[in-house]
């Protein structure tokens, strides 16, 4: 499943880049995050309980930055391991200066396996989109917060 989009942040590129590369703030953008530990600036793990409306989906998410061109491009490999579902995702984002802040073009190739797949694509795709929206909204928050700190 390929998902992509653009998003503009009312913040300078450096701030957006700093948030995107800070494992602590990135971990907080994960839906239903319960705990996380940072191995180094390229790898960290989050334990999440993704709120699926009818119940939580527990998952251990390992993130690893596999490519980087500061401050414009980064690519991450995300491996989610849970009993309800396994996720293998590769996502990348490109930052560029835009009127009023920074424009981020992102894309993600999401592979879902396991029991949740048996619920049917028509439910699965919207659920994935919802989680992506959650991350983007949370990212907005993190960026604003980062703005607040430096302001």
């Amino acid at each position: 499943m390929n998902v992509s989009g653009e998003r503009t942040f009312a913040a300078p590129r450096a701030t957006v880049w700093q948030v995107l590369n800070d494992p602590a703030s990135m971990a907080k953008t994960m839906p239903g995050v319960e705990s996380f530990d940072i191995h180094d600036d390229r790898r960290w793990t989050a334990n999440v309980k993704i709120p699926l409306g009818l119940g939580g989906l527990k998952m251990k998410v390992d993130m690893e930055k596999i490519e980087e061109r500061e401050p414009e491009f980064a690519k991450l490999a995300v491996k989610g391991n849970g009993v309800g579902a396994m996720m293998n995702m590769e996502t990348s984002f490109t930052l560029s200066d835009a009127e009023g802040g920074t424009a981020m073009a992102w894309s993600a190739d999401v592979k879902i396996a396991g029991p949740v797949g048996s619920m049917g694509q028509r439910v699965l795709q919207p659920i994935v989109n919802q989680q992506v929206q959650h991350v983007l909204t949370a990212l907005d928050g993190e960026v604003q917060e980062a703005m607040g700190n430096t302001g």
Partner: protein
Amino acid sequence: MTQASETTLAPAPVEVQKGWAGQSVKRKEDKRLLQGEGVFVDDIKRHGMGYLHFVRSPYAHAHITRVDVSAAEAIDGVYGTLTGEEVAALTDPFFQISSVPGANIKDFSLAVGKVRYVGEPVVAVVAETRELARDASELVEVDFEPLAAVVDARTAQDSDTPVLHDDAGGNLMWSGLYSWGDLDAAFAEADRVVKIPELHFHRFNSTPLECDGALVEFNRGVGQWTIHTNNQFPGFAAIMMGPAMKVGLDKLRFVTQDIGGGFGNKITSHPQLVVCCLLARKLNRPVQWTEWRTDFHLSMSHGNERWFQDTEVAVKDDGTLLGFRTKALDDAGAWLRYEPLGGVIWAQVTPGMYRWRHIELDFTQVATNKAPVSPNRGYSRMQHLWFTERVIDIVARELGLDPVEVRKKNYIRAEDMPYETPNGCVYDSGDYAGMLDLALELIDYGAIPAKRAEAEARGKRLGVGIGSTLDSGTNNFGQSRLINPELQFSGNNEVATVKLDIFGEIVVTLGTTPQGQGHETTAAQVVADILNCSVDDVHVRAGHDSYWNSHAGFSGTYASQFAVTGLSAVKGATDMLAAEIKKLAGAVFGGVPPEALELADGGVRIKESPDAFLPFMACGAIVNANNAGLPEDLDVTLNCRYVYRPPFEVPDVETKKGNLTLTYATQIHVAVVEIDPETGAYEIVDYAAVDDCGKRINPQIVEGQVMGATAQAIGAAIHETYEYDEDGNLLTPNFYDYHVPHALDMPPLATGALESPSPFTPLGTKGMGEGGGAGIHAVCAAIQDATGAIVTDSHNPYQRVWRLLHEAQA
């Protein structure tokens, strides 16, 4: 007390009196099934049994790097586990039917080192309760290294495509070129060569309502497994399991009673049965396994998905068909469990129902990261017959002729029967043109133009289509040698025993595993006719039990053969019993020859003086409990076992010619569809089905088979499909998206029948039950008629029909 006398050659057959055969006797099986007192495998309970749950692969193709069951086994109430590693140590790979390269794959009952389709069993966990077994399975840790998945047979052999089985050196499993007649002469003589680039028969399966299951007990003292199961071909399962488990086949006692539908899908559960056996022995407790619907869809018995590429048809302008050449590419899924037999079984109906004599088919079977294929209703013949019917309709469209006329011009004629096909099969009897006329009459074919106009007025596109199909029954397993010349299988057989008990009760045991075909009833009808008694006096034991010793290598219920092999075995055993009863009575009455005696009113009497009468009860009592004074040489046990063997030869491996099936039932269906052109949604508004199944022992049961197969075909044509995404995830893993039609989906149905007895079988019967594929052919033809576009896929959901409409308009 008595040793069954066994002979394989029946005495002179007794003339079957007109009586029970041919009547729609009400089924004996119904009383228990209607009161919820049937015994299906998940109903069986044993003290201390453990429930088995499989840990299944979430990936379509991946190396297994680590398996850790310690967390699962630590749970209180978990009895134990079984891993691929243990299986590889305890058992040998399953015997492979294929020749090289398929012969080289190593198939164990759990994944060893690598997983090859989503849902493949990796670890088995046994626990005290069903729920706990699943909880514990979630604690089994398995690490995978995902690999790219192979999901399209057409690219399976490309150089950059991953290889499933390194032992086979590639994804090619089996290939064979079949060529009969003189292709060059046919194409030279042709007015025109019709080219069809690609046709696709889609992947689906018959989806019996009951999934697989077993309850296995191990008797440690005698090393004997009792396998309560719903496997429908115990003969085949034993041949696979014995060598793998390195035990004699007699150590594997198969017991079935009621089976919730099979349709071929319950032939290849031997891997799961081996896991149950190993765990029953390891844990020294009964092991119960029930497969749930999603597990079944992910892992079991998919139908053969087959592409027909670069087809060329040699035709005359008047519609006469001379011959065709095509390349068949078959997708076997991840393992060869009954395959590549599909690579030859289609050859039972090579020309379909037509008289063309020059045919070439280049067959290739490849492995992909999908669930393994197993026989499905119409196994491999449905795919080929769909192909021949598509060719007829496409040729008719190209020549601007009426599909009815092209069929009638090329059908094999009644007067040609028995008809030998280009590859040496013999169609025994049938009147195809006569059946088509009856079907057209039932659908009121003449009124179609008016109905088309009336539908147009309502904004609907009407289409009518014909689907003619053969139901080849009673395999000659010698055809397996065309797949692998070294195989030592040929012919076919089935066994029955009939005995008179001490009090004269008539008890029949069969070697078959009925799943709804009413064997207890039809067998009783045959016995009652020969013993001239009532069907109510005949007790046929339910199901199969290898301890009854009434089974042989090919015992089971599959491939449309009961009416021939099963009933012929029953007839043979009953003829023997009748002869023995007369021999006994002759001795008791004092030197009365058999011809002077007759069976009637539940006993045997002298024709000329009927009051000299010996009831069956007396016969049973004499032989079993009161046999002093009988003549020394009186060889009578009243417990007769007969093995029926159909008259077959071993096919010629070089020319690939030979008689591969004994009988050919026929079905011709006509479907009328109405399409909503704006959405592509359509429904079948009228349907006719005409069948010719030879002598019908129980007409109502025969018609029930025709209806059931028709409903399955309609489901496959419109809704049922197994499709995978590029990562090898099944997109229709359960009844959410795999829509099985229900009562409201069924069209009105008109049925008709002819009865052309088979000259090759003792009772004139023909194996039948799998010919329903005609529904797929008819719906495809009707959609082509309604849209005007060429239909190239056997599955036509609304979306595809919408596209066909727009293609036709563009």
